[in-house]
């Protein structure tokens, strides 16, 4: 490897940094305790020590495909939200958005790792000796058409009103699904859902409160919120359409049929709208192409551009050590 990026610091036997003079390495001061420099400099299987045996009565390929769908939703939406870093209206909201993105990224990592464990054939092949773990291979080395996220997750960011409207819609839908997923027969999915419910309760409340604030704020904030909801509404219906994989895992007691949560999620969203004094948008659903939508790998152009940005460094260095 000649192009591999690296920060080189020498250590003596006790692990202390060896000084090379004052100006030689700008990072040496950070590396007094090497182990504490930046979390996650070394990754391992996030499911290490977790029993990943596939339960009876479900096709491992269906379980893997289902986890990929849920994992891609969380990954793509996390990436979108993290694009807000340092651009939110104030520091508190910037940190809130980063926290939400981090929770979703954590959920995604577990879901993608679960997918890889259930069906290793899904994981892209890399040159022998590549240290990239399975969940990163799935995140960084798949093409856009292999992504199975709902299209709502990939919508390019608008203003802050658009961000909170999108988080409200996503977390209302997702929380309803995860609440049911807690009783999945797959112990890994169940564990991911139990943690996810706790986290997304905060996300939904955060977004709901901001929707109220903006709706009852100024004419400008209300107009922006309504414009955002109008723009996102065509993607609401897709969230509750049942893909054959979802039907299969739901029948096996492993997954959740999203159509089942449509009423409940709609009622919760209507509660927020009623408290905010606004109406549900009246916009028809965004059509698929030949009946295909996000779950089938049919996406908007925005996903391809987002992935190009997200994946470029990892793809440049498939054997890179970080």
């Amino acid at each position, binding site marked *: 490897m000649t192009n591999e990026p690296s920060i080189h610091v020498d250590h003596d036997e006790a692990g202390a940094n060896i000084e090379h003079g004052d100006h030689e390495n700008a990072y040496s001061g950070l590396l007094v305790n090497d*182990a504490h420099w930046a979390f996650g400099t070394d990754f391992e299987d996030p499911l290490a020590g977790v029993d990943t045996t596939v339960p009876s009565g479900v096709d491992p390929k269906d379980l893997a495909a289902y986890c990929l769908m849920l994992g891609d939703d969380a990954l793509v939406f996390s990436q979108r939200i993290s694009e807000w870093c340092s651009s939110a209206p104030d520091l508190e909201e910037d*940190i809130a958005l980063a926290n939400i993105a981090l929770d979703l990224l954590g959920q995604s990592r577990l879901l993608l790792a679960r997918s890889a464990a259930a069906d290793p054939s899904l994981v892209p092949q890399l040159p022998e000796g590549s240290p990239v773990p399975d969940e990163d291979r799935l995140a960084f080395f798949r093409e856009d058409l292999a992504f199975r996220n709902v299209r709502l997750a990939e919508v390019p960011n608008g203003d802050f009103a658009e961000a909170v409207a999108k988080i409200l819609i996503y977390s209302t839908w997702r929380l309803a699904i995860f609440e049911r997923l807690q009783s999945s027969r797959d112990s890994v999915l169940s564990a991911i859902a139990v943690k996810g419910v706790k986290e997304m309760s905060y996300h939904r409340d955060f977004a709901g409160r901001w929707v109220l604030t903006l709706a009852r704020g100024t004419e400008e904030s209300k107009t922006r919120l309504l414009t955002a909801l109008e723009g996102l509404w065509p993607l609401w219906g897709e969230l509750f359409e049942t893909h054959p994989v979802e039907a299969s895992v739901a029948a096996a007691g492993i997954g959740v049929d999203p159509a089942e949560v449509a009423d409940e999620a709609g009622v919760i969203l209507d509660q927020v709208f009623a408290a905010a004094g606004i109406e549900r948008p009246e916009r028809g659903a965004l059509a698929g192409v030949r009946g295909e939508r996000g779950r089938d790998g049919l996406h908007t152009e925005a996903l391809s551009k987002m992935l190009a940005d997200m994946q470029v460094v990892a793809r440049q260095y498939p054997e890179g050590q970080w």
Partner: protein
Amino acid sequence: MTAALQTPASTVRGDSDDRNDRVTGSMATHTDAEALDRARAAAARVTDPEMPMLTLVDLGVLRDVAIEDGHVVTTITPTYSGCPAMATMRDDLQRELQDAGFPDAQVRVSLTPAWTSDWITDEGRRALQGAGISPPGQAPRHQGPVALTLMPTKRALNCTLCGSANVKLSSEFGPTACKAMYQCLDCLEPFQHVKEI
């Protein structure tokens, strides 16, 4: 030999008598018991990388220390799914155990049961308070669907500097995933609060 944890505090701290009751008979078991004590003591020294005033035991993240087939096996659980400190906690545990004479100690990550802020020990709560971080109240228990809460979360808590209850939530999301941010309206001190989860 496995000593499963009933609660994080009672077994990991290794100060309870009932633990010794489980150790019976042969020399081999006695050696194991001694090793287990040493391993527990070492694991109990490891602190949280973000909140160094707390040990992993105080935080409720260290779930088990056991000896399996002659190897020390410790189990930790993440606070939040995306907690970036997990790898550091694992490395710190491994290093501390290595220094205590267990070079082949293994650290397992367990996702169930899911961590709750209720597992932070009384000692941990005092340590947080002492460091100017407001400790969590009781975690919500969900029976049925999670309720939507559109008004700011009401918590009865006091300013960590002046003790006033006249405080205002400035954000549900703080500098780490597990904390919210408050400000005291009397002395104006901004402070962090560990969220109930």
